[in-house]
């Protein structure tokens, strides 16, 4: 499904979402259109499937409740990605706080559980890559995942993460170098 499809449908969707009579139907269409992309984006941040399911649902609920505040300054896709990113990071922080751990310790724990996770079927090198990503600072992890796996453009990432393209390029470059050295160094 090309990006043109999303953009063209965004305009129509937004007007239907902001009209009370068609809101629920349009909201269902919106979820159908974006659920898979948002799920994989969230999954790469929170790692576990069950947590991703919770965060995905909360993301859509937040979108539904705040659709009237969406002014169209960014693409609908970027706006939802931003909500999903914030929800996922908030979830991680709350989880760490609840178990009285630092964010790094919580990530380490998630990595330890990954090998036995029934919803992870990666081979050794994929597991090693996830472990390497987990060693990066939070922002570099986001940038790496969005660029490497989702193939987002720097312009789109800048819109989602509300930062400059230059900073993102630098972050990605540093992240790739660190990961390469971890993968090859072993």
């Amino acid at each position, binding site marked *: 499904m090309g990006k043109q499809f999303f953009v063209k449908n965004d305009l129509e969707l937004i007007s239907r979402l902001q009209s009370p009579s068609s809101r629920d139907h349009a909201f269902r269409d919106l979820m159908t259109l974006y659920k898979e992309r948002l799920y994989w984006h969230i999954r790469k941040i929170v790692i576990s499937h069950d947590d991703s399911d919770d965060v995905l*649902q909360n993301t859509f609920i937040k979108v539904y409740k705040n659709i009237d505040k969406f002014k169209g300054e960014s693409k609908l896709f970027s706006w939802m990605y931003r909500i999903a990113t914030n929800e996922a990071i908030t979830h991680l922080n709350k989880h760490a706080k609840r178990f009285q751990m630092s964010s790094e310790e919580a990530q380490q724990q998630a990595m330890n559980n990954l090998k036995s996770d029934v919803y992870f079927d*990666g081979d050794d*090198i994929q597991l090693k890559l996830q472990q390497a990503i987990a060693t990066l600072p939070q922002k570099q992890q986001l940038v790496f995942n969005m660029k490497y796996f989702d193939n987002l453009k720097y312009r789109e990432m800048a819109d989602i993460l509300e930062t400059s393209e230059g900073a993102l390029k630098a972050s990605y470059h540093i992240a790739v170098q660190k990961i390469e050295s971890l993968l090859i160094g072993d």
Partner: protein
Amino acid sequence: MKKKWNIRETGFKTPQNYFDGVEDAVVSKLNSHSGLSSIDETGFKMPEDFLDSVEDRVFKKLNEDSNSRVISLVSRRHLLYVTAAAAVVLIMFTILTNKFSTSESELDYEMVESYIINQDISAYELAALLTEEEIETINTTILSETFNESSVEDYLLDVVDFENLIE
């Protein structure tokens, strides 16, 4: 060529089916030493048909949100009485302080506090000394400023032991 000894085999052997897996082993080893370029996928997967039910589950959650009222662990009315009582204690304390200072007596704070406590006055009795209007003022000026949703959530996360609540 004529062999010097009548030995046809080396004696070495391989694990069973060793040669069936050689290709995979080599590719795997190649990948493990070629860094990022060999990895296209994350390795994550999801339950079969999971995405088919996302819409219905989100609508269900939305309906639950709108149909159910949140029952507070601390009732607002109760909180109101406690706050009102605290305000009364504060007022009495101020009056007593002024009284003692005008008569130039040495003020014993602990004595005043224990006096109020020992009188066995309940929060409801103290609140009864206030008019509805005064209680409403306390409600709007103290409660609404101090107990907003995020500060209550932060407080619960920081202080409350959830395991005790579940029990």
